[in-house]
């Protein structure tokens, strides 16, 4: 099959940023998820939390003003904006595990049709880093996964069952990839949006599980403000 151009990481991050409602508290994972922050209009009052013990940040520090005591969980230095609060690791996970975070945006290695997520270990490596991911997928009110739809070698990442070690069972609510936006519903994965030029059949051909066709499949929003 001849496929149209896929979207960029920035497009995925922008699309994910649209999912974050006004006044929400959000934890962004390392890498692609962390790019979301760039696309948030301040008026939306979205406040980010990081596992290492900070809430209320909105932007990264200027490279000339890096403070080792003001970092996010991805190791990026933050800008000192009004309304920050700090706390230790126990309290940080009270917040996460206790169900207080509205949305967790994470990267994914594999997602199953039931919403199982694998994102912490490539089986063959035999060792991996869990970090805060298992707490986040269990604790956040909503979990959004941002990732490429298939691997570099065109292997499926959206599957009947994950074969990498799981991060969590039935924990994913939405998947945003470089070609599609899917929602996890009871019956499986509902295809809601496709990237410009793509259609259901093309997306299905790159997906390891049957996608449910929404009656109104929209085009993926890629126009950034």
């Amino acid at each position, binding site marked *: 099959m001849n496929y149209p151009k896929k979207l960029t990481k920035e497009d995925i991050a922008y699309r994910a940023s649209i999912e974050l409602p006004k006044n929400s508290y959000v934890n962004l994972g*390392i*890498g692609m998820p962390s790019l979301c922050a760039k696309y948030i209009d301040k008026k939306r009052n979205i406040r980010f939390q*990081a*596992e*290492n*013990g*900070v809430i209320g940040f909105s932007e990264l520090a200027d490279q000339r003003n*890096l*403070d*080792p*005591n*003001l*970092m*996010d*969980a991805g*190791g990026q*230095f*933050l800008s000192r904006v009004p309304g920050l609060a*700090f*706390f*230790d*690791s*126990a309290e*940080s*996970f009270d917040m*996460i*595990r206790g169900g207080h975070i509205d949305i967790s945006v994470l990267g994914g290695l594999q997602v199953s049709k039931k919403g*199982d997520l694998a994102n912490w270990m490539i089986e063959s*490596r035999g*060792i*991996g*880093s*869990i*970090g*805060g*991911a*298992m*707490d986040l997928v*269990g*604790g956040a009110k909503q979990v959004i996964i941002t990732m490429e739809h298939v691997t570099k070698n065109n292997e499926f990442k959206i599957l009947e069952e994950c074969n990498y*070690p*799981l*991060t*969590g*069972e*039935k924990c994913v609510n939405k998947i945003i990839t470089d070609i599609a936006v899917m929602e996890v519903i009871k019956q499986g994965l509902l295809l809601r949006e496709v990237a410009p030029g793509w259609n259901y059949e093309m997306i299905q051909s790159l997906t390891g599980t049957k996608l449910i066709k929404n009656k109104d499949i929209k085009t993926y929003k890629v126009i950034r403000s």
Partner: protein
Amino acid sequence: MKELKIFDSYKDAVKDLKNGISIMIGGFGGEGGQPTNLMLALRNSNIKELTLIGNVAGISMTTGYGWTNKKEAIDQSIFFKNKQVKKIICSFPIPAKQKPISEIEKAWKNKETTVEVIPQGTLAEKIRAGGSGIPAFYTKTGLGTIVEKNKEKKTINGKKYLLEHALQADVALIKAEIADEFGNLIYKGTSRAFNPIMARAAKLTIVEVEKIIPSQEIDPERIGTPGIYVNRLVCKKTI
């Protein structure tokens, strides 16, 4: 009935530690909140067969993670390179990228070190429990994953949970910004992380601080760790 000891040498502050002990290392990963000078002194002490407990295990030296000057990065790798570690308990042992391979991954591949990976929130809560007289607690974190292997499960109000046990250590090496002569500690920004809970969970808590000021000058509202949990303070410039 402990007496707080104040050192001006990192070496002296760790010189009586023995082979085979368990050591918690504070911070989160990266420069802020990491007791870097105490870690270097521990590496130089050459004590072996250590069980280390901490959030990370060596991601900064391969990736520059969390360091303002990435070339200066120091992390737990120094202990693996020096073959001091029997076991490490952590949440984030290795970076996602496989190259360059980190010292911990080498030590693990060479079977020199056992690595136990625990979800970060469960690790934090196990350590908090260790200092708080809570021997065990239930959490849903890790359910349905390999984390639940060999663990007791219990159904509470119709939902399944895992039993997790408290974690304690012989020694904690932690970092704070300011201390007073009673050992009261003030932290700065995101450099709290695992430091306050580790201070409570170890038999001997050794703290690296930027400065020690008289208690008359310390703000009681800002204290993150009361001196009751602190046994040793190290600072190059004391009161």
